[in-house]
């Protein structure tokens, strides 16, 4: 039996978190038996579709309809439901994201499937079907039992290592029939930073807080981020005052990141900020106040003035190469 994976694209490129979801499904299929079929919506070229194979998919169903390039929630849900039927799948895996969540919720009803989000580990299928998920914004976990036949797992970033050694996936064109009503919500325009590393996907994040004093100093954050190949983030007050755009705001009420390295500069480490970063593997804190609460959540720390430390650190990273 196949496990179906819903993959997302941005401008024709498959998202890295979606490839991780394929690797997650592959590990699950290896355990349970069966293989992995991915479903890709919209215009994506063959080479890009091939990446699903290296990540672990045996097959990819491609719905080559440009109306699905944008993330129209209802239309995506309807198309994925048809793929689920076609494959005869019992399990759907996807990456947790702003679109993934919205699509998965509708699919849960369409497919009569139990949905678990923020999944952090492979399911325990020994007796029953238990899945570990992160709750209380990363402050706890819940071992969750699914009682339904059909299941949907929305996987949190870094739940599994991305596979890159799989064989090529067979690409199959897949036609879906979509009612006009699924396009009821019309996307009129998009306004997206291009070429940047997306914050929720980034392996390294450099974030600045109010301690950076003003937007004119952000070049220091950006220089370090560039050397590290990192995305940039910020604390809530920084986006509230408009120093940085809202989609960079990290924390309880913003983006929850799960990078391998999070560098926090001039951020005090309020509990609401920590809630967005507590899934990071390593945390580095740079703050001039040795009593800043962030040091308690950090692996490495430098007590010092950001304006002195940042340029030196950027140089030191550069020197490494």
């Amino acid at each position: 039996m196949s496990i179906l994976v819903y993959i997302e694209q941005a401008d024709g490129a498959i998202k890295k978190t979606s490839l991780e979801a394929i690797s997650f499904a592959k590990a699950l299929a290896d355990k349970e038996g069966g293989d992995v079929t991915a479903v890709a919506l919209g215009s994506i070229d063959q080479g890009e579709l091939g990446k699903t194979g290296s990540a672990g998919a045996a097959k990819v169903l491609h719905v080559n309809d440009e109306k699905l390039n944008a993330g129209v929630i209802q239309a995506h849900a309807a198309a994925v439901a048809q793929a689920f039927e076609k494959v005869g799948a019992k399990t759907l895996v996807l990456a947790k994201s702003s679109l993934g969540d919205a699509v998965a919720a509708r699919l849960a009803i369409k497919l009569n499937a139990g949905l678990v989000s923020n999944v952090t580990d492979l399911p325990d299928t020994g007796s029953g079907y238990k899945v570990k998920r992160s709750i209380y914004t990363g402050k706890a976990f819940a071992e969750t039992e699914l009682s339904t036949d059909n299941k949907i797992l929305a996987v949190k970033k870094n739940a599994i290592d991305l596979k890159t050694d799989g064989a090529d996936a067979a690409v199959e064109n897949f036609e879906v029939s979509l009612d006009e009503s699924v396009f009821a919500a019309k996307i009129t325009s998009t306004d997206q930073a291009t070429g940047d590393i997306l914050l929720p996907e980034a392996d390294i994040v450099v974030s600045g807080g109010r301690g950076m004093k003003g937007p004119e100093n952000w070049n220091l954050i950006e220089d370090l981020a560039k050397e590290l190949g990192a995305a940039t983030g910020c604390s809530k007050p920084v986006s509230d005052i408009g120093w940085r755009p809202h989609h960079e705001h990290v924390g309880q009420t913003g983006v929850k990141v799960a990078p391998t390295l999070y560098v926090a500069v001039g951020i005090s480490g309020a509990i609401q900020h920590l809630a967005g970063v507590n899934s990071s593997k390593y945390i580095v804190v740079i703050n001039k106040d040795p009593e800043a609460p962030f040091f308690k959540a950090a692996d490495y720390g430098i007590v010092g003035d950001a304006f002195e430390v940042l340029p030196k650190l950027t140089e030191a990273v550069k020197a490494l190469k």
Partner: protein
Amino acid sequence: MKILVCITHVPDTTSKIQFTDNNTKFDKSGVQFIIGPYDDYALARAVELKEQTGGSLTVLNVGEAETEPTIRKALAIGADDAIRVNAFPKDSLFVAKQIAHYAKEGGYDLILMGRESIDFNGGMVHGMVGELLGMPSISPVMKLDIEGSTAKMAREIEGGKEYLEVSLPFIAGCQEPIAEWKIPNMRGIMSARTKPLNVVDAVSDETATSVVEFQLPPAKGDVKLIDKDNVEELVRLLKNEAKVL
């Protein structure tokens, strides 16, 4: 316009999370409960929209009697009346089924929720209710205006936003900066005491998930401090010890 806002009753964002009964129950001792922060944004925007267009604003919570102070706070902020579906909110599907039923019964033009609860972080109840009612569901919405029977909004996507238009009725999961949180004033608090809070029964007992056990993350080790004049040492540690560079 008839607006419905669904609110959660959740531990304050500064709460220490602990469990009791062999890690099967949330430990409420010493915990202050609040309106979910995202639901609070939805409520604030609903109050503004009602001021602009007139009509009514109802809040709904699926929860036991303990949630009433939280519901009263929403009434103090500006809702006209409230519905409490008297049941322990067993899981997202259970909650969605109750909301769908009472939302349909009320015939609302606009249903606002938070993008996600801050306890179970599902981010799914709005989509489930949308599918159950055959309505569009859009989340996370960071800007929302109503012009006649059309809603214009901005939805946050990774690295930016997209702009959408949809006809009413529909469901939105809200987040900042859709509106600023509103703090109830004295008049609001006084009038909230006498506003109708209707307690109704659960209409379905269906669930799809149950929590077997709660767990806390392992404790974090001590921070390794590096001298500010020796940043090369930090880079070395990140490369050789943490192996992240």
